[in-house]
């Protein structure tokens, strides 16, 4: 099967407009007859479900949470980008497009990124109209800040809770449609399989997490907006339940997986404190605007940070990158921190941390200023570590944060299975090999509010849909397989709890497929993971029963998939013999230790086709063409 990205013709500025004109429309009177299933109601899913219902489609939405408002999107702190150029500092759609392609280290599809930049302004308008309380200036107009390495102020934010406010906006739009009867919503339902009939996605099977029953949902198209898979590492900044099951099971039904090894490691997280740690907490990147990162010059210096004199401190980011300083992109900041710790400069009890110091800012602008700007983050830091960051520097360390990889989609956001659309972090996305700050929220909402409502109509209007219902053999079979799988899991009754195996997997992945990778380590991981996989299926212990609320069973399904996905991630990382963005292969770096791309060989999206458990997946390549932003070595010097 050849990959067709379906990028419209014409100059990049007109592609989306042209495409919108040439796409087929569904007759308004007929929209009600089309049934769309939306799996996942985070930013991407809620916005899509609400917008499609407003258009008149018959929508069913479900999520494994108790309410759409609990989706992982709620945790995003920093902000959302849009080139409104309100600050008059030279921003434009073109600049956002350029920054995103460059920031992604030239591994994203230009046409998609341009469209993203184009619609991002509408997102802000939409959210404000919904009542999202973005930060404002005293004049009453919207405030912007610079974020995540951007040199213009284009980030809209709502204190440190931007994701929350945006999600509540999308959720309220969804609620309105539920109230009007246009969306039927089901909570605590976890999709466990995709049903494909005659080559088209026609529904899903979900487990009712309260009573354990499998339920079939039939539709004419299926949208997955199920988020990222960072939890394959066990420890990440993702919410505890975030998982890959929906996308992975769709992958097993034929959807290609794009760039699975592209993971983002966020530089400013609270370091791991003990073995019992269950997750990592992000300290918003905005802190890098006001804090200075340093380590002691002397390796193994165990003095209290306040006792280390100025001249014995190494402000290494400022030293290495004089023009960007502490604001270099995430991948660079993360890698440098790791390097400092690897060479013995790390601080704190574990030696796996660097300092983020606010004393200069406090001296210059006063403590009150810092309290107003970052008070909630400092409180959170104190809550977790018991340390007061107004009086001593914070300790930070990189942590897994976001997955750029995901199901491969074409320009219409359709996967390689016709009728299966993938939005938000779940798709392989517009971020290439590295995502810039404040752009995931933008992408999720762009997909949901402004792209899918058009492109899905084209698909529905161009295809015919023979009537099927849940009695169809494909649904029955899928349900039978799931029942068997679930019974198998429950009946193993081995010795190791799911979390323990998950932690083990996470350690392998972090050590060998994490911030820096090399062929040797990846090959080892590829030996260890199948062993662990094997052990899981023989030695996992799941108490309780299948037909009841059972959180251990929920986790088991997810970890079963992580074990398979982890292997693919390592394959992908191994095959990509270059460094780009978040994918840093130690063998491929410049003399200064920067990522060294190999555009001649690897300027493509790696899209993997599932061939059966235990069988290597087949690689398909979507070549990337850069007509507008010419690839160069990224430099933040």
């Amino acid at each position: 099967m050849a990959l067709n990205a379906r990028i419209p013709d014409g100059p990049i500025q007109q592609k989306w407009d042209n495409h919108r004109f040439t796409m087929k429309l569904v007759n308004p009177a007929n929209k009600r007859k089309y049934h769309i299933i939306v799996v996942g109601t985070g930013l991407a899913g809620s916005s899509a479900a609400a917008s499609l219902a407003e258009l008149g489609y018959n929508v069913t939405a479900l999520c494994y949470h108790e309410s759409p408002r609990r989706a992982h999107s709620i945790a995003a702190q920093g902000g959302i980008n849009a080139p409104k150029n309100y600050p008059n500092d030279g921003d434009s759609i073109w600049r956002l497009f350029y920054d995103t392609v460059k920031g992604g280290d030239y591994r994203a599809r230009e046409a998609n990124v341009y469209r993203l930049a184009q619609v991002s302004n509408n997102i802000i308008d939409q959210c404000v109209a919904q009542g999202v309380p973005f930060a404002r200036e005293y004049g009453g107009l919207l405030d912007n800040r610079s974020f995540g390495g951007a040199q213009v102020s284009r980030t809209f934010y709502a204190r440190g809770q931007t994701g929350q406010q945006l999600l509540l906006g999308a959720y309220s739009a969804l609620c309105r449609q539920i109230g009007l009867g246009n969306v039927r919503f089901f909570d605590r339902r976890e999709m466990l399989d995709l049903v494909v009939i005659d080559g088209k996605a026609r529904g899903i099977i979900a487990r009712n997490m309260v009573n354990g029953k499998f339920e079939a949902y039939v539709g004419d198209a299926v949208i997955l907006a199920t988020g990222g898979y960072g939890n394959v590492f066990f420890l990440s900044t993702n919410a505890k339940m975030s998982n890959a099951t929906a996308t992975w099971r769709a992958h097993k039904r034929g959807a290609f997986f794009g760039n699975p090894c592209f993971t983002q490691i966020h530089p400013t997280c609270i370091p791991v404190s003990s073995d019992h740690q269950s997750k990592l907490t992000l300290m918003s990147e905005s802190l890098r605007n006001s804090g200075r990162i340093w380590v002691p010059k002397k390796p193994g210096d165990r003095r209290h940070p306040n006792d280390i004199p100025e001249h014995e401190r190494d402000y290494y980011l400022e030293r290495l990158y004089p023009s960007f300083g502490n604001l270099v992109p995430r991948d660079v900041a993360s890698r440098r921190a790791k390097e400092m710790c690897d060479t013995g400069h790390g601080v704190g009890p574990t030696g796996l941390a660097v300092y983020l110091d606010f004393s200069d800012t406090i001296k210059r602008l006063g403590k009150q200023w810092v309290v107003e700007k970052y008070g909630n983050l400092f409180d959170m830091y104190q809550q977790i570590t018991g340390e007061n960051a107004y009086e001593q520097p914070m300790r930070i360390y990189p942590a897994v944060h976001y997955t750029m990889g995901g199901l491969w989609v074409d320009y219409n956001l359709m996967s390689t299975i016709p009728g299966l659309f993938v939005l938000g972090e779940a798709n392989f996305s517009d971020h290439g090999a590295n995502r810039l700050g404040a752009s995931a929220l933008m992408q999720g909402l762009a997909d949901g509010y402004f792209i899918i409502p058009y492109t899905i109509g084209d698909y529905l209007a161009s295809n015919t849909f023979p009537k099927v219902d849940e009695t169809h053999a494909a649904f029955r079979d899928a349900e039978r397989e799931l029942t068997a799988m679930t019974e198998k899991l429950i009946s193993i009754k081995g010795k190791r709890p799911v979390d323990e195996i998950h932690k083990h997997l996470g350690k392998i992945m972090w050590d060998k497929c994490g911030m820096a990778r090399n062929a040797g380590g990846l090959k080892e991981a590829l030996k260890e993971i199948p062993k662990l996989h094997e052990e899981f299926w023989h030695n996992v212990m799941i108490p309780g029963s299948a037909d009841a609320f059972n959180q251990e069973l929920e986790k088991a399904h997810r970890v079963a998939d992580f074990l398979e996905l982890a292997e693919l991630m390592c394959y992908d990382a191994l095959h990509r013999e270059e460094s780009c963005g978040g994918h840093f292969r130690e063998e491929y770096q410049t003399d200064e230790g920067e990522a060294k791309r190999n555009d001649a060989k690897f300027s493509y999206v790696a899209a993997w086709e599932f061939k059966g458990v235990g069988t290597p997946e087949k690689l398909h390549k979507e070549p990337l063409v850069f007509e507008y932003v010419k690839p160069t070595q990224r430099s933040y010097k």
Partner: protein
Amino acid sequence: MADTSMTITLKVWRQKDRTSPGQFVTYTMPNISPDMSFLEMLDLLNLELVRKGEDAIAFDHDCREGICGSCSLYINGRAHGPLRGVTACQLHMRSFKDGDTIVVEPWRAKPFPVIKDLVVDRSAFDRIMTAGGFISVRTGGAPDANTIPIPKPVADEAFDAAACIGCGACVAACKNSSAMLFVAAKVSHLALLPQGYPERKARVEAMVAQMDEEGFGSCTNTYACEAECPKQISVSHIARLNREYLRAKMIEEKSGPVDCAG
């Protein structure tokens, strides 16, 4: 950091499902580190239970950063535990002492039935939101975001209300199981913003009606909700809700049903 590990006795409410009766079960946990979060301590207990083949304790959680509103534990007689402005997931064991007995219960309120152990069903909140917790605006038709300036203090106050995470601690702590603070936070957030004006009458009426229908109690202004709210939402928003409601009932306004756009 400190290797001063503690021994904690836990009394946890265990309940098989919605209809079964429940009871407290006591567990002793040696070697608890003060740096552990409360939920990590429950994780640890669950690991042990699972190793023994026993059913793990069910509790809701997800973000573990105090923002998703999933966690919902009544710890030693306080919603989200002893600290103010902190969710259960952000509570750390350093808030307890060696030898403490900690009683862990689910939220208790008729509209929040127990699903299992410490997990309750809070979908009543969603239904209240569905009744009117929104501004009727279609995707696409919005004017430029800077068309309506909003004074910063007003925007800030709207934000204070909008910060609600829908955790239900207000209901759990209120002696009347009243959902006033939750509902007020939403009503207040939208009533403060000019975008929310057109529907303010219909919104407050619909949300209060749904709140009553779900079976929440009525507020007697004990303000326990504000004290226990992890986002410290002020009861002044309840005052605003009351005012909005009175205004809605007294002033005849040409405002359609909550949804006019369709």
